[in-house]
């Protein structure tokens, strides 16, 4: 089972891209990805309510896709209600974009959202961000109790990924920016194979770059299979979805 927890679809105001759901699906088919978590960029860049609707509709249409909801806490009005609406609808994963939207994870509006999300036992995807950010995730967000996957930690902050994933039982790490030799093996040694979850950031990035890192990592077959799918199913509560 190959699961990619980091994909999206939609448009970009900065460049002309062909990131339609159909393009994404074609890529996933080509790469033999069984399931992919995805979200609409509309929800990140413009309006999370209609963006989440679009995500749900697309994922409803295509069985391979699993919906990820997003909320921009800067709006205040309707944010907590959106948690309820999405949870009631069946979203099990929420993803946030503080860097793109210009807010911080220690801000009260976001912490209020965390509290609401914790009540639903959902999973949260958060960016690794700059130095210190993952530590904040561990210290401030992990105590809410839901599982958190850190997305896009590059080599400059991988030491922090190791430390946080090792210390907090409910913090995991996604792989698409793991590009140094031994990063994946190192995280497996330090925090355990269950803490590493494959993601590609398709269709923005080359799927093959992230995938080759897992394929070439010196891992047991069992650990590799867990990273490429088993961990996502288990820790993002995707079984049966």
């Amino acid at each position, binding site marked *: 089972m190959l699961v990619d927890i980091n994909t999206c679809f939609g448009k970009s105001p900065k460049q002309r891209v062909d990131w339609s759901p159909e393009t994404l699906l074609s890529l996933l088919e080509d790469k033999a990805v069984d399931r992919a978590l995805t979200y609409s960029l509309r929800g990140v860049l413009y309006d999370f309510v209609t963006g989440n609707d679009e995500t749900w509709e697309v994922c409803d249409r295509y069985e391979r896709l699993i919906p990820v909801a997003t909320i921009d806490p800067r709006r205040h009005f309707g944010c907590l209600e959106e948690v309820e609406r999405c949870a009631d609808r069946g979203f099990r994963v929420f993803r946030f974009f503080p860097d793109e939207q210009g807010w911080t994870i220690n801000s009260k509006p976001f912490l209020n959202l965390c509290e609401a999300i914790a009540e639903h036992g959902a999973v949260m995807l958060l960016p690794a961000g700059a130095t210190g950010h993952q530590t904040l995730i561990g210290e401030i967000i992990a105590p809410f109790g839901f599982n958190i996957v850190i997305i896009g930690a*590059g*080599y*400059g902050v*991988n*030491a922090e990924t*190791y430390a946080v994933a090792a210390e907090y039982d409910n913090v995991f790490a996604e792989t698409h*920016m793991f*590009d*140094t*030799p*031994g*990063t994946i*093996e*190192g995280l497996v040694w330090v925090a355990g194979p269950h803490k590493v979850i494959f993601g590609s950031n*398709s*269709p*923005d*990035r*080359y*799927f*093959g*770059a*992230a*995938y*080759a*890192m897992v*394929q*070439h990592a010196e891992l047991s077959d069992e650990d590799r299979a867990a990273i490429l799918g088993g961990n996502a199913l288990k820790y993002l509560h995707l079984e049966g979805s």
Partner: protein
Amino acid sequence: MKKIDAHAHYGVWNFPIPHCGTVDNLLRLCDKHDVAHAVCSSGLAILYDMEEGNAEMAEIVAEHEQLLGYVYVNPNFIPESIAEMERYLPEDGFVGVKIYTAGYSGVPADAPIFEDMVAEVARYASAMLIHTYDIEVGRTLAGYAEKHPGLNFIMGHAAAMDSDQAAKLARTHPNMYLEFCSSWAGKGKVERAIDICGAEQILYGSDMDLIDPAFIIGMFEDAGLTEEQKQMIYYDNAARLFGLL
């Protein structure tokens, strides 16, 4: 497919990279990814001491045929850099020069002393690897490339997210090359570059052992290249450029 890695380093990086900074690790990665030659520059030379780093590099390339060297030059120390080129470039294992813009040396590419350094490099070498993090550096290099047609400029990281514009510079400057190693594996950048400037001016480079060759090879393998294009990018272009044919 056999490869020449046009962008490798020997030295320690302060990131969690097991076995980093050892010859054994470089050779292990070369063997794992079918790299016939990796052209390395010294991290010690770049980050701290040019002369000590180049000397260390010279010892390594003399001992290991698989590893080739760039002589590192520093525009802050032009006479000393000239001495380094005179000392090492005649040696078999060295195939070019490596220089940094702004970051490590603190000298921007458009600074007069940088320009003076490039002019000196053009007297001694035929290939020079320069890190390009955006197109501004690329544009400055294009000016130097026009002034020094005998020197081939390898744009390390291919100007990162500005790689399309870097490819346009390569199209109009036959002595400018793109080398794509980067943590930013932006989908489509290789295909677009080939459309713009052709495969002849693209080199495979990994930035190992900071970046894993698997990551960059995965990117190229995902780019739908023909076997002929792969052969050029992975091996032939670099072999021609570094005189390894």
